[in-house]
């Protein structure tokens, strides 16, 4: 059975095809202004790469922006469900997924079948997001990609006392003027973001194993800080974190077909 997932994001659109428990292929394209165009682009590329046609795919699920507008999708699921299912499918022991995105940050709890149990998301405050890291890194004069490696060199990490990333930007400038070590400041930046994420995880109810996905996973310093706060090592997901939503959508589509098939074999209505 072949199923596909299509995840339309603000910047990039991701597609993945799953066959019998294996990721057969994936594609990432830049998003266009219309969700339908972006979804069509990524599916055309993905199917073209694999030499398949739309007719060969048994079930397609969409997620992300405009997920209910995609004409070729057989159904759609929220990004949160897809992310949870995708991470748990890739690493079966995972029960808590931390998805650190650009403007949002989520803690997602799933059960042993990858179904969504509960989630928490920042709604009022940008602390804990990639945007926060980006702003504070800019104040430090480094690219956000350098924060992780730099913070690992810290000897005396600085404790930032304000959660707000805008106010911490001022704090970073002040620390620089005071001549504090840049690695120590970088560690402080990762620490303050990790603290915010930890609150979401505690709130949703931490259950191990924990996977870190999204842009947050690319910052090794942030991941180490999080592990200190959560008291446990996180597991890494063996694919580009960007693809987890699309893979999750494809797996959920397979789940749906599997249940439908099981239902039909029992003579019941399709689920």
């Amino acid at each position, binding site marked *: 059975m072949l199923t596909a997932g299509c995840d339309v994001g603000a910047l990039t659109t991701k597609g993945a095809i799953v066959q019998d428990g294996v990721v057969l292929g994936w594609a990432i394209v830049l998003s266009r202004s219309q969700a339908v165009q972006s979804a069509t682009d990524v599916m055309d590329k993905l199917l073209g790469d694999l030499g398949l046609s739309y007719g060969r795919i048994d079930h397609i699920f969409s997620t992300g922006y405009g997920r209910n507008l995609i004409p070729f999708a057989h159904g759609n699921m929220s990004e949160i469900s897809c992310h949870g299912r995708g991470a748990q499918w890739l690493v079966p022991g995972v029960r808590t997924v931390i998805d650190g995105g650009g*403007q949002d940050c989520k803690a997602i709890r799933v059960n042993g079948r990858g179904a969504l149990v509960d989630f928490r998301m920042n709604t009022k*405050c940008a602390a804990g997001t990639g945007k926060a890291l980006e702003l504070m890194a800019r104040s430090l004069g480094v690219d956000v990609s350098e924060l992780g490696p730099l913070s690992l060199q810290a000897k005396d990490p600085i404790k930032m006392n304000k959660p707000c990333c805008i106010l911490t930007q001022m704090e970073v400038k002040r620390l620089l003027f005071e001549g504090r070590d840049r690695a120590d400041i970088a560690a402080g930046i990762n620490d303050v973001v990790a603290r915010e994420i930890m609150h979401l995880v505690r709130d949703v109810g931490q259950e191990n194993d924990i996977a870190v996905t999204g842009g947050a996973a690319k910052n090794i310093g942030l991941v180490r800080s999080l592990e200190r706060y959560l008291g446990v090592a996180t597991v890494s997901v063996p694919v580009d974190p960007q693809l987890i939503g699309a893979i999750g959508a494809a797996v959920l589509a397979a789940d749906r077909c599997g249940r439908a098939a099981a239902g039909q074999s029992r003579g019941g209505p399709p689920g």
Partner: protein
Amino acid sequence: MARAVCLDDDGRSCENQVGRSASSWGGREEEKLLYAGCDLGVATAKVAVIDEEGLLAFEILAYSGFPQEAAAAATERALARVGVPRSRLKRYLSTGFGGKAVPHSDGAVPDTACLHRAVRMLDPRVRTVVSVGGHSFSVFHIRDDGGLGESAITDMCTAGMGLMLETVAVALDLPLDGWDPGVQRPGQVPFIDNQCPIFAESEAISLVNEGHDRHDVQAGVTAAVANKIAGLTRRLGVRREVAIVGGVAKNRAVVGLLERNLQLGFAGLSGMDPQVVAAYGAALLAQEGCSLDTERLSSSVSEHLRRKGGS
């Protein structure tokens, strides 16, 4: 010097009457003792120069580079306006976000102490002071005996601060104080829930993309900021008279909405530029502390704080 010329935060030149005639100043220059205060904020440096008789000149300098250089430049300009060298300053105190970083300062004092001192001087009837800058927001009471009463400070979150107005104005490509009653269409103003500049910026852009007029969106953001300020003020308690100080006090839209919300008119503070009140307060504290030694000065400041904490 009858007039002090300064730059407002858009960099335009404006003239400020400081109510002093040249003759009252001239002739006895050598005998006059001068004091100054520098309020070094995140985006602007404010300097006030006074003598025993009151304000001589002030300077508001917006900066984007090094705060220390901005503080030094603002001080030089304010002194140039009075026409005296730096050596004429008997005492010079600093306050604000970068108070401790101000070069040549004789000491850094808390901004609440400065605002309290200045407002007491400008209008003794004031019992509630609302202070809203670009990156600061606090409300405090002044007791009937003149002491510092209870205070509420938001320093963990930028909600209610002027930064949000600025961020959204830039995103919408509108002037910061583009409040034009003719443009307002009350039924069309969207309700903005976000208090975080980062979220408000993307919300504002989304609203414009959905077809809202930019001015209406700006009015919605302005209302969100005004509501936040009114909320904290009410929580502490509105005791008349009420004064508003800080850069946001120059935003007519916010002030208008606040006056309507709190059902009052703000005290005029003798016409002083609301952005320079903390610097003026620092200068007044410098003047009072001048006859004291450093230790006694800092104890007079901690007295302010003790009263604040004790009440």
